C-alpha cells in the first residue's frame, strides 16, 4: 500500500494550519482523551436516560398538563446533544465547520418534514368529516 496521499504536495500541511476534521474523528488526540470522552458520554447518558424513564413511570402530579411529554422531549434532545459531543466528537471549532453545517442542514430537513407533515395532516384531519358521518352519507 502506498503512503502517498491523494496528491503528494498536500500532506505536508504547509498550507493547512487547521485542516478540517472528519466527523467523529480527532486524529491527533491520545487514547486517554477518547476514553475520557466515552466515560463522560456514558455517565451523562445514563443520568439523562434514567431521568426520562423516571418521568415516564413515576406519574407525578405535574403542575402543568403537558409537562411530562415536554420534559421527555427536552431530555431526549439533551441526550442527543451528549451523544453528538462525546461520542461523535462534534465541536464548534473551525475545523468542524463543514460537519456542523451539514448537521444543521439535516436538522432543518428533519424539522421541515416532521413538523410540516404533522401540521398539514392535522389541519386536514380537522377539516375531514368524521368517519361515522361519512358512512351515513353513503346510500
Amino acid at each position, binding site marked *: 500500500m502506498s503512503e502517498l496521499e491523494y496528491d503528494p504536495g498536500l500532506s505536508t500541511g504547509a498550507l493547512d494550519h487547521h485542516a478540517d476534521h472528519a466527523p467523529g474523528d480527532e486524529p491527533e488526540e491520545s487514547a486517554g482523551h477518547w476514553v475520557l470522552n466515552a466515560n463522560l458520554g456514558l455517565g451523562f447518558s445514563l443520568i439523562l436516560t434514567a431521568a426520562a424513564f423516571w418521568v415516564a413511570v413515576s406519574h407525578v402530579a405535574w403542575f402543568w398538563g403537558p409537562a411530562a411529554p415536554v420534559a421527555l422531549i427536552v431530555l431526549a434532545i439533551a441526550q442527543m446533544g451528549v451523544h453528538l459531543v462525546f461520542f461523535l466528537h462534534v465541536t464548534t471549532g473551525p475545523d468542524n465547520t463543514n460537519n456542523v453545517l451539514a448537521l444543521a442542514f439535516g436538522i432543518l430537513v428533519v424539522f421541515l418534514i416532521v413538523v410540516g407533515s404533522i401540521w398539514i395532516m392535522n*389541519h386536514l384531519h380537522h377539516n375531514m368529516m368524521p368517519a361515522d358521518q361519512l358512512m351515513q352519507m353513503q346510500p
Partner: protein
Amino acid sequence: MFGKLSWSAIPFDQPIPLITSLALVAIILGVLALITVKGWWPYLWREWITSVDHKRIGVMYCLLGSVMLVRGFADAIMMRTQQAVAIGAMGYLPPEHYDQIFSAHGTIMIFFAAMPLVIGLMNFVTPLQLGVRDVAFPTLNSVSFWLTASGALLVNISLFVGEFARTGWLPYPPLSEAAYSPGVGVDYYLWAVQIAGIGTLMTGINFVTTVLKMRCPGMTYLRMPMFCWTTLAASLLIVAVFPILTATLAMLSLDRYFGWHYFTNTAGGNPMMFMNLIWAWGHPEVYILVLPAFGIFSEVFSTFSGKPLFGYRSMVAATLFICIVAMMTWLHHFFTMGSGPAVNTAFGISTSIIAVGTGVKIYNWIFTMYGGRVRFTVPMLWSLGFIFTFVIGGMTGVLLAVPPADYLVHNSMFLVAHFHNVIVGGVVFGLFAGLDYWFPKAFGFRLHEGWGKAAFWFALIGFWVTFTPLYMLGLEGMTRRLQHIDIPEWAPLLRISLLGVGILILGAICQVVMLVVSILQRDKLRDLTGDPWDGRSLEWATPSPPPFFNYAVMPNVEGEEAYWGIKLRAIETQQLSPEPTYEPIEMPVSSPVGLYTAFFASVMGFSLIWQIWWLAGLALVGAYVGFVVFAWRDVHEFHVPVEEVARADRARRAARGAQLERLAQQGAIP
C-alpha cells in the same frame, strides 16, 4: 417456484407491446452481435464498463439518458396521437394500455431520461471545473451509474414481461394498493424507482463531498464556476429528499406485499399521507433537475457573451435560496386535498417567494449579455430559447401558486402544459445546451452547427405549437390523462397539438442527423487546442478529450474564472507559463463492482416483482459476497508514471503554444 411468473405474463395477444418489444430485443441482440463480431468486448469492459473515471461515467449516463429520452418521447407521440383521434371514439389504444403509457412516460422522463442526463453532465464537468482528478468516491460513482441503468432495465422489461403501472408517474394510493392494482405493474414501478433512487442518493452524497472537500488549490467557494454551485445545491437536495422517496415507496411496498395499512383506505390507513410524503420529495426533485440546468445556462451566457457572469454572488445566493425554499413548497401539488385556508395560504406564499430566486437569475443572465459581444452558437440559442420559454412557464406556475386559482385548473391540461413548459423549456433546453457545449470536451470535435440550429428551431416552435393548445384546453376544463374525449369542440386544438408533436419529431431527427454528420465530418470539426468556445472555466484548460487524470499538475487558482486569467496572461505575454515539475499521479483502479451490484440488484428487483422469494434471497447473498470481495482488495490506486504525465502535458502545451503563434501571426493580439 417462479412466484407469479408464467407464460401468460408475455403479451402475445397485444400487438403493440409485443412488436415493440420484439423489435427492441432484435436491436439489442444486433448491437451485442456487432460488438462480439468486431471484438470490442475487451475494450468496452476495460475502458467503459469497469471504468471509474468520472468522464467515462458521465458519458455513459448521458447515453442512457438520451436513449430513454427517445423511449419516453415515443410514449408522448402515442399519447398525443391517441387524444387527437379518440374524440367521440375509442382511438387505437385501449384504456389499460393508455394508462400504462402515460405512467411510463412520466416515470421514464423524470427518473431515466432527465436525471441521468443531469447527473451525467454533473459527472463529466464538475471535477474538471474544480481542477481535480476525480470525484470523492470514484468506485461508488460507478455503482451509482449501474444501479440507475438497472432501474431503467426493469422499466423496459415491463414492456415485454407483465405490465407497467397504470397509476400515473406517482402511484397514488388507494388506487396503487394491492386491492385495486393487483397486477405487477406497480411493483415494476416500485422496484425500478427504488433501485435507481439508491443510485441517485449515492450520487448526491458523492457530489456534496466532492464539491465541499475536493477542490484544487486556491479554488475557494466564491471562485467556483456557477455550475459547481448548482451541482452542490442539487446534490444537497438529493441527499435531503431522496430518502423520503425511498421511505414512502417502502411503506407502499409493505402495504402491497404484506397487507399493512400505511396508505389504505381501510383500518386506519391514510392515503393523504402518501401525497404529503411523496411531494415532499417530488417538489425538490424538479429543482434537482432545473438547478444544474441553471448552472449550464450561466456557463453558456458568460462564455458566449465574452463577459464574466453578471452578479455572480447574487447568483450563488439565489441558488442556495432556491435550495432551501424548494423544501418548503410541496403542498402546492395538493392544494385541493383540503388542508384548509391556513395551510394553503402559507404554501401559496412560499411558492410565490421561490420565484424570486429564479427571477434574480433571469435578470443576471440578461445583464450578462448586456454590453457583451454575443455569439449566437447552438448552446446560446438553446439558452435564449430557454429564457423566453421558461419565463412564460414560470408565470403560469405563479398563477397556479394561488390556491383559489389552482382549484379551477388543478389536474387539468393547463397544469400539464405548465410543467412541460418549465421542464422542457428549463431542463431539456438546458441539457441540449450543455450537451452541445461540452461535447467537444468529451469527444474532441464540435457538433455540426447548422443541424444543431435546425434542431433548436424545430424544438422551440414545436414546443409552443404542442403546448399552447393544451393551455387553452386546460382553461376550457379538459382534465389530464383522458383516454378518449367526448367533447367535439376540443378536436381542433388537440389536432394542432399533434401537429406540434410532428414538428418536435423533425427536431429530434435533426439531432440524430447532427450527431451522424458531426461524426462523419469529425476531422473538419476537430478541436485541437481544447478551448473551442474561448471558455472561462478550468475544464477548457485541458486538451479535448482530457487525459484520464485530467490535470498533469493540479491548477493553482488565483481568482474568479480560473482559466480566463491564465489565458489572458498567456496571450498578453505571448508565452505559456513555465513548464511545471511533473510528478507521478495516483489514480483509482478500475473495478467491476458497479456492474456486479447492478446485476444482483436487477435480479433481486425482478424476483421481488414476481415474488420469487428464493431468487431474491440468493441475489441478496450474492450482493453481500460481492461487497466483501470488493472490500478485501488490496490495491486501490495505481501510479501514472511521470513520463506519461509529461508526454501528455507537453502535447497540450505544444497545441496551446501553436495557437499563440497563430494569433500573433494573424496580428490579432492588440
